[in-house]
Every structure is written in structure tokens, then in C-alpha cells.
């Protein structure tokens, strides 16, 4: 390797730091502004507030008055947790089938599964909506949650398949010799060993469902079934420029769970992105 001179290294570090600051500045500014009195937000670029207040949080939380962010956050948590359970159950099962079992049609199914990763949700949303509408599921969480139990997030199947493939087959074969069937090999051997892939699946499913807007705006129609993202949208619909403080306060709250998960599982998540190309 050719070594860089000291000056080059200093310049590079400085540039990388400046870019990091520019990237993160708007985000930090929003969080800080959510604690500023409304009339100061639009006058102040600094990240150190001169006056602190929780008023924006109080106003924002009340939302429309009849339905508050208590409902929206409750719905977001419920949907996200159920989506995680669905994805973990269904994707780990299906991945076992693809990674370890031999049967007719497996290769075809596997490539079909990979193709669904590229399929835009828009291509199926209208018939799905018509379907769920007929079943009386619109304005419930079912159209958002049930598909997760049917392994529709192919990304995670792929992620777990890759992980299973890295586990030595000798382990399952030894277990089969000892009298285990496939169900217990799956449950007792592969599943516990695949914990890192399952945690990655859990976190990304939670974050994606938490941030999802398209499916939620389509299926959730009345404020009592709204999630946090739809609650935030209501600020926009009211076209109320004077509510930026409240909007920033609730926006800040809505990204807290994501940031907490990220900070806690940072290494695992970044490895997940690096090895499987999951988008954040």
C-alpha cells in the first residue's frame, strides 16, 4: 500500500467531518427546535436554544383533540410488533425449506421469491384493496399485518436463507442420526443458531413498518385507527404553518424508537447492510 502523507490525512479527516456535520445538522436542528417557543423557530439557526419549553409537545400530542397521539402511537406499536412476529415466524420457516430441504420445484420457487423483491407494491395494491374491502378489513390493521404472516417480505427470507447456509450441515445430519425429524432440527438447531439474522429481521421489520406510509394511508381511514405517521400527516393536511413547533415535536418523538434501536444494535445493523444489501 502507498501511504498517505500526514497533510493528506488531515485534510481527508477534516472533509469527512464537515460532511458529517452538514448531514446531521438539519436533524439536530429539528430536535432542538421542537423545544423552542414557536416564534423563535423561524429566526434561529443555532443548535443551542435560548429558551426551553415543552409547550410544542403538549400541543402536538393533543393533535385534533378528539383523537390524540396516545392512540396513534399505540396503533403504530401494535402494528409494528405484530409485523415483527409475522415476519420472524413465516420467514424463518420458509427459509428453512429453501436452505435445507430437497423437493421438486424448489429452484423455481426460490427464483420466483427473489423476483418478488423487485416487484413494486403498486402492481398488486388495487386488487389487494378490492379483496380486503370485500372482506371488511379496510380500516383495520389486518391488511397490513396478515401479509407478514404469509412471508411476503422476500428480503428477510433471503437474509435468513443466507444465514442458514453458513451453518454447517453436519449439525443437522448428526441430529437426524440421533432421531430428530426436520421440525425439531429446525426448532432446536437452526433457529437458535440463526439468532443474529432473526434480530436483524426483527429490527428492520419494526423500523420499516413504523415508517411505512403508503400501505397505512391506503388502509387506515379513520383517526381512531391512525398510526403515528398518519397522525403527522394530519398536520400537513391542516395547512397550518403556525404549527411547526408541534409538528417538530411529534416528528421528533416518532423517530425516537428508530434511533434507540439503531444505537442499541448498531453493529448488527451495519453488518446486515454490508453483507445483504438491505436498505435502511
Amino acid at each position, binding site marked *: *500500500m*502507498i501511504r498517505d502523507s500526514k497533510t493528506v*490525512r488531515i485534510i481527508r479527516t477534516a472533509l*469527512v*467531518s464537515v*460532511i458529517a456535520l452538514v*448531514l446531521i445538522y*438539519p*436533524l439536530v*436542528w429539528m430536535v432542538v427546535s421542537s423545544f423552542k417557543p414557536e416564534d423563535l423557530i423561524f429566526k434561529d*439557526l443555532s443548535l443551542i436554544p435560548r429558551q426551553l419549553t415543552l409547550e410544542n409537545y403538549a400541543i402536538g400530542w393533543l393533535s385534533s383533540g378528539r383523537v390524540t397521539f396516545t392512540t396513534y402511537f399505540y396503533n403504530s406499536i401494535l402494528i409494528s410488533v405484530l409485523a415483527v412476529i409475522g415476519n420472524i*415466524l*413465516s420467514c424463518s*420457516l*420458509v427459509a428453512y*425449506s*429453501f436452505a435445507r*430441504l*430437497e*423437493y421438486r420445484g424448489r429452484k423455481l*420457487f426460490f427464483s420466483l*421469491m427473489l423476483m418478488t423483491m*423487485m416487484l*413494486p*407494491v*403498486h*402492481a*398488486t395494491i*388495487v386488487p*389487494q*384493496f*378490492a379483496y380486503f374491502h370485500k372482506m371488511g378489513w379496510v380500516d383495520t390493521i389486518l391488511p397490513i399485518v396478515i*401479509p407478514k404472516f*404469509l*412471508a*411476503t417480505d422476500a428480503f428477510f427470507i433471503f437474509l435468513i436463507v443466507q444465514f442458514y447456509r453458513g451453518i454447517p450441515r453436519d449439525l443437522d445430519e448428526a441430529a437426524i442420526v440421533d432421531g430428530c425429524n*426436520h*421440525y425439531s432440527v429446525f426448532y432446536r438447531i437452526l433457529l437458535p443458531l440463526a439468532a443474529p439474522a432473526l434480530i436483524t429481521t426483527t429490527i428492520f421489520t419494526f423500523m420499516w413498518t413504523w415508517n411505512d*406510509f403508503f400501505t397505512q*394511508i*391506503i388502509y387506515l381511514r379513520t383517526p381512531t385507527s391512525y398510526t403515528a405517521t398518519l397522525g403527522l*400527516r394530519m398536520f*400537513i*393536511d391542516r395547512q397550518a404553518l403556525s404549527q411547526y413547533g408541534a*409538528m417538530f415535536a411529534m*416528528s*421528533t418523538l*416518532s*423517530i425516537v424508537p*428508530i*434511533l434507540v434501536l*439503531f444505537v442499541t444494535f448498531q453493529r448488527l*445493523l*451495519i453488518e446486515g*447492510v*454490508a*453483507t445483504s*444489501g438491505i*436498505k*435502511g
Partner: protein
Amino acid sequence: MKKMDKMAGYVFLIPWLLGFLLLTLIPLAYSFYYSLTNFNLLSDPSFIGFSNYVKMFTRDFHFLNAVRVTFVYVFVSVPLQLLFSLILAFALNKGIPFLSAFRAIYYIPSLLGGSVAIAILWRQVFGMDGILNMLFRALGLTSISNISWIADPRFAVWSLIILRVWQFGSPMIIFLAGIKQIPNELLEAGAIDGATRMKQTTRIILPMMTPIILFNVIMQIVSAFKVFTEAYIISGGNGGVLDSLLFYTLHIYNEGFSKMRMGYASALSWILLLIIALITLLSFKAFSKHVQYH
């Protein structure tokens, strides 16, 4: 034993088989059928042949606007984003103090980028009284500080382009992992043969990384075509002034779920599907000459 094996394969596959049939394959077929009909959910679909497709190209000027806005967005933002992420991956790879902290900070925008919260922030940043204009005023650039960058149709799409470039962290991490996999001996051998830094990069590192570059190009293009949240929130759901933020998916949403023209929305979706399939195919073709597998 053998017999049980065969059954077990299908048993474990049941969730996916059901999901694929009920939520992908059948809806996909129905979506094509609906695209040939007039359908508003309340009455049965009535068959009208290819009229929806004809209407799209002849009478729906919103469609042409949406195609234009989306193409500009995709083909400006994705190259910028990937170029940026490639350059920073090289910079980080050269060794930098606090590498993991920088990696984490760079990744945060990718993590939050698609959320409503960030879209709301962007509305403010590029609005009339936003951070950008406050900055221009502070720098004395008053002549350009009275423009609402999201309401002016000349600039509106740029706020979304910047939003995507802002999210360069996740492709950067993938590039960084790719660079690290290139064996050091290869670079040393190059250096012994007299390769300069520039030559090492263009002749050894970049060719070795073509599969990863291809992967990122396809993933980012596909995801850029599907942008919805930012377009909806920043334009307030209506596609902005003179359709300047009428992204393709927003047009689908407005036709299908606001105006309940579900047959027409299905036709729009099929065009999107074809565009994405075609671009994926073309990227594979364009790269297949240069891709080196190792």
C-alpha cells in the same frame, strides 16, 4: 425418511406459497384485468379494452408530467447519490479516526430518510422561511432568499433529489464492504508493477467492484421509482405547483384511491412495472460485459 423429506419441504413452504398465490400472483393477474376495465370498487368492473392505456398517452397530461418528474428525479438523484457514496467509501477506507462513528452518522439519514418526520423537516428546510433561506440571509444572499424552493416549480424536484443524495449512507456501507474484500496482494502486485494510486483505483478496485456497483444501481433505481412519502408530504398530497412534485406513485395513489378510478390506476401500475422490469434488464445487459465475478 425420503418421503418425509419431500413433504417437509412443502410444509415449511406453506406460508410463502399462500402469500405468493393470494397476495402476489392472483392480484397481479387481476391488476392486469382491471387495467382493461372501468372500475370504481362500488360496481363491477366493465371491460373497455385498452382505453385506459390510450387515455394515458393521449388525454392525461398529468401522466406525462408524472413520467417527466419521476425520470428527472431518478436519473439525476441516483447517479449523484452513488457517486457520492463511492467517493466517501474510498475516503473512509483509507483509514480515518473514529471510523465506526462516522459510518454510523452517515448511515442515520438512510435509516430515517423515508419517514414522514423527515419529509416534514424537508418541507421546512426548503420552505420560504426554512433553514436554507435563513442561511442565505445570514450570508447576505438576500436576492435568492425569498424563494420557496418547494413551491417554485423550477426547483421543487431538487429538494427531493437532495433528500435522496442525503441518504447515501446505505450504498456507501455496501461499497465499503466491497472494497475491503479486494485482496491486498492484488493492490501490492499492482504497486510493484508501477501502478499509481489513480491506476490502482481505475484498473483494479473499480473493475473488481462492478457486481456491487450493479447491485447498488439497480436497488437504488428501483427504490427511486417507488418514492411516495416524500412526494406526498412535501407537496401536501396534490403533486405541487404545476405538477412539479407529481411523482408517478403519487399519480397512481390519487387516481386509484382519491378519485377511485381503480381500473386506470391499475393501468398506471402496469406501466410502472414494465418500466422497472425494463430498466433492471438493461442494467444487467449494460454491466454484463464488464462484470467480473470472483
